[in-house]
């Protein structure tokens, strides 16, 4: 159960942190993020990660809990990277910028 709760929180937190970067925000949301958006995504992201870590430590103890949280960060990080790439068509989009004239047909 704790794996699911902390896992989802970690996934949400890392997603928020990823979206706070322009190169990932653009293909997902369509626009470049405003400064306010970046700040709130970063705060929210770190908050979610802190909550996830907190839950892990409280339920599983400090040692075991931190190991579990580290593992979740790893797994969620890979998931976010793959979702951004394959889920939001970044395969051809490079840095999320508009396609160059050469590619427009």
């Amino acid at each position, binding site marked *: 159960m704790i794996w699911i709760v902390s896992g989802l929180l970690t996934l949400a937190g890392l997603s928020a942190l990823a979206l706070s970067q322009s190169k990932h925000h653009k293909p997902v949301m369509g626009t470049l993020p405003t400064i306010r958006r970046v700040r709130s995504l970063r705060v929210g992201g770190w908050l979610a990660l802190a909550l996830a870590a907190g839950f892990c430590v409280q339920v599983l103890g400090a040692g075991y809990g931190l190991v579990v949280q580290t593992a979740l960060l790893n797994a969620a990080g890979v998931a976010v*990277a793959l979702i951004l790439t394959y889920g939001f068509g970044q395969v051809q989009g490079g840095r999320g910028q508009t396609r160059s004239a050469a590619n427009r047909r």
Partner: protein
Amino acid sequence: MGQVSKDAGGFHGAFRQSISWMHTWVGLVLGVVLYFMFVTGTTGYAQHEITRWMKPELGLQTNFETPHDTAAMAEAALATTLANLPSAPLIYLTLPVTGRDGTGYVNIYADSPPAPEGQEPAEAYEAQLSATTLQPIDPAEVRETGGGQVLYTMHYNLHYIPFESLTLFGFTLPAWPTLIVGIATMFMLVAIITGIVVHKKIFADLFTFRPGKGQRSWLDAHNLSSVLALPFMIMITYSGLIMYTYDYMPTVKAAAYGVGDAVDTARVDCELHEYGCFKRAPTGERAALAPLSPMIARAEVAYPDAEIKWIDIFNAGDTAATVDIWPSGGDLSGGSTFISFDAVTGEVLGTKGARQDNPVGRVGDVLLALHEGNYAGPMLRWMYLLTGAVGAAMVATGLVLWSTKRRQKLKATERADLGLAFVERTNVGIIAGLLIALASYFWANRLLPVGMEGRADWEVNVMFLTWGAMLTHAALRPARKAWAEQWLLAALAFGLIPVVNAVTTDIHLGATLAAGDWVLASFDLSMLGLAAFFALAARKAASRADRSASSQPSAATSVMEPAE
């Protein structure tokens, strides 16, 4: 960008260049050893489960959650041992622990007494006792196999290399396998640190993966696998290195404990290896062993949050006999914890706990516990398996990156030099080939005749012969075709294991799923999962091979990275 900016002059340019050079070469030179260690080490996290799959005669097991009757198992195991080897100086019992290893049996190992002058000592007694029936499993009925243990042992001892060491000036150097593995681990540590230093955009590129762009994509994959799993990588490498501290720095041990005959082995055993602290020399007088059950009950009171996993009995049948009972808990404190009893009276002689007066030792114990992962529950152990696989992918993508980068630098009419051609081809044989070899180990386990002489050794020989065959195949085929063919072979080799299992044994997927033996079922399902992954790789490699076969200059430029 992550690329070395060769135009940057001055200190920073040169520093970055030399760090990058270092990272490339420590990775490349011992990449094959590191890849081998990651693959075998990863299997090590499931070694008991693999062993059980490789001994299908042990049958199904469904009791995973209900704790076993420790006292009953221990008494039965001891009785069996003494019936076969009445005056064993050393008896090791390993009991199955709920939810943390996949065995359903007690493992028994008993040393035979030393032989009189000129005679060979009797064979050690090794057996397994079923946890449910409390009956010994007849070794003649179980196929001889190294199981998962042999794979795990290869992780740190490699194979075919004699475990001998040189002694220089009174100091014993590490054994050859330990030396090689240690140098590889040190190279790995250097690779991690230099990799972090040279990765300029470590945060900006944290979630970046751009497939279909040749070298750029391999670099992204290499970066992702290393950075996202960085805590694990640092931990596993450093802890692996300190596991052999006293081998790699023998003068430290010598300064504390002396050399040669002057060494007080009992003190070394207890202080360094945290073992046998209350052991006593045998008196030669016979005395009956007190029953184990009260001792076990006392141990369970001393360790309420753990299960009893190991019982060591020293000098059974002597008046100086002792029993050490070890708990196995889910905590990270590592080190040795046990309670020692006088085996004749049943009184507590003493306890050994975490090294309270030795903070450095305790840190080391925690690191070693993290490395081995024995404390981990099932879910965390799956994470260990996945992360270990990511580590293997990290080394593999690094090796491929090296050759891809150099091939893309070649002009259209330039041919690859010998070094590039060599690495390009051996990469296939090393990376895909080792995985095919691993599958062949499981095939050999099912197909080699059960009564065959030296069967366990031959299962491993098949594995290395297959690896050799894959390296040969890679040497003879063009690199792109070799990748496609070997990934396809890997997919088939793993995917058909459940089929071979069904044809040759009773513990196939249908039986294990129906009976609820999740441990055995997980093995077959994992084989299918790996096969699916390799099939995907085969498809990608095949399309890449087709593209290059019909390539024209414009197609070739599409895989070159855009100007940054």
